[in-house]
């Protein structure tokens, strides 16, 4: 099946094509569709591009290897989110990563800078983004994932519940505590990003 023929299909159809015949072309379309979302959430979890790239690639490999187990009980997007979050949490839990230091936040930001901004504005934004990312990284992992999902990815509580499998009350309270903590960490920063 040609990519042109299937690129317009929705997630459910593409997933079924992959499930039926391990169609790598159909899967590549799904990867293209969700690669930015997955890479973004991985970057917010990991704080550096190399780890984010590893985690996001690992996420899609897991999706491909387990796609036949996907029963369409939730949306494919939610399923990918869940796999990405778990992959990142596993990476962060590993001792190897805990001993590493983040060094490439600024260089990562350089790639996304707008050409219309003055250098002063651009570097100020980079500084603020790094402060915010550092603050996020200081959160406990369970709060971090909820802040990423709720405030950065801006998912609904329903989606967060489906992804994390946590009770809604727990999600609310953890988000509240995480926001309070971030408020304290970022109290001196004016919103200028």
């Amino acid at each position, binding site marked *: 099946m040609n990519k042109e023929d299937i690129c317009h299909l929705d997630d459910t159809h593409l997933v079924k094509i992959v499930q039926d015949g391990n169609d*790598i072309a159909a*899967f*590549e379309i799904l*990867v*293209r569709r969700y*690669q*930015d979302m*997955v*890479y*973004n959430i991985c*970057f*917010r979890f990991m704080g550096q*591009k190399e780890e*984010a*790239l590893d985690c*996001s*690639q690992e996420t*899609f*490999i897991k999706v*491909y*290897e387990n796609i036949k187990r996907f029963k369409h009980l939730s949306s494919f997007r939610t399923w990918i989110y869940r796999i990405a979050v778990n992959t990142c949490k596993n990476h962060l839990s590993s001792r190897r990563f805990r001993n590493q230091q983040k060094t490439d936040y600024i260089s*990562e930001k350089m790639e*996304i800078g707008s050409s219309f901004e003055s250098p002063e504005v651009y570097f100020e934004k980079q500084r*603020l*983004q790094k402060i*915010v*990312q550092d603050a*996020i990284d200081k959160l406990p992992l369970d709060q971090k994932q909820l*802040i990423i999902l*709720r*405030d*950065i990815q*801006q998912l609904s*509580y329903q989606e967060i519940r489906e992804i994390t499998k946590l009770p809604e009350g727990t999600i*609310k309270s953890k*988000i*509240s505590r995480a*926001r*309070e903590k*971030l*408020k304290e960490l*970022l*109290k001196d*920063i004016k*919103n200028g*990003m």
Partner: protein
Amino acid sequence: MECKDICEKLSDFIDGLLAEDERKLIQQHIDRCEKCLGKYKKMKETIELLQTLPEIKAPENFSEGVIQKISERQFQKQRRLTLWLGRFAFAEIIVLVLIILLNQPQKEQIIPEKKEVSQNIAQSEVVERQEAISKQELVKKQPKVEAPVLSEKRIVPEISIQLAYKTAVAERPVEKRLEADRIKEIPTERKGEPIAASPMLKGKLQLGSGNDIACTLTEKTSVESELITIISTAKGKIISEQTFKDTEVSQVVCVEIPGQDYQDFIKRLNESFQIRNLPEIRDKNFPETNVRLKIEIFRQ
């Protein structure tokens, strides 16, 4: 509602998760409490700060990289499977080798026995050779024992005598002719035994047409009684007898006669048969030697 309760619900208030009544209560409290209002504003700014973080796009060729990694994983899985199968096959070979090696000690137990047997055989052969050598030495040392006269004497090379019947015996019964056909070589065990009447010599003997020594069969009955009598009188022995059918020579009898009795034997033979030839014995040891005669009896 106190400020503490308000602060705990600010997050839910911002997200619009509260019921209408509760939302109104918090809103009224924030409007009149600057401290709680400040906390509310600060939390809202923090959330907005997080929400304004730019979305980071995946690197170029990200999807191609993912597909390539998937292909590599599948290749590695296939390779691992192949390796596992290879290891399994190797393990099977090891098990087979072990089974063979486990069976090996039984063979090794047999091999020493074989070696022992072969060594024993070799040793016994050596012993036998030594015994044979010693026996030969003993024989050499032992004095020679006198053998019987006939067997111990040197034998004059075989001479051939042709005989023919003096009287025609064509009238003999047919059955007696047939009996003669059964005559074969004398069995080995009979050689050297005392000569008795041999049924193998029964049969019709016909005179030949030779022109050497001629013997005449005086009686028509049979040749054996006459010939055997002559041989036994001369202290000789029959070596072999052969009868032929439909040939000029009907019978060949090999006999061995003591040299001293040879002249008497020839004399008696001449009385009964027509001797067609009588070769001269030129052996210097004659008559001390035995004489071996090949007697050919011709048909009539």
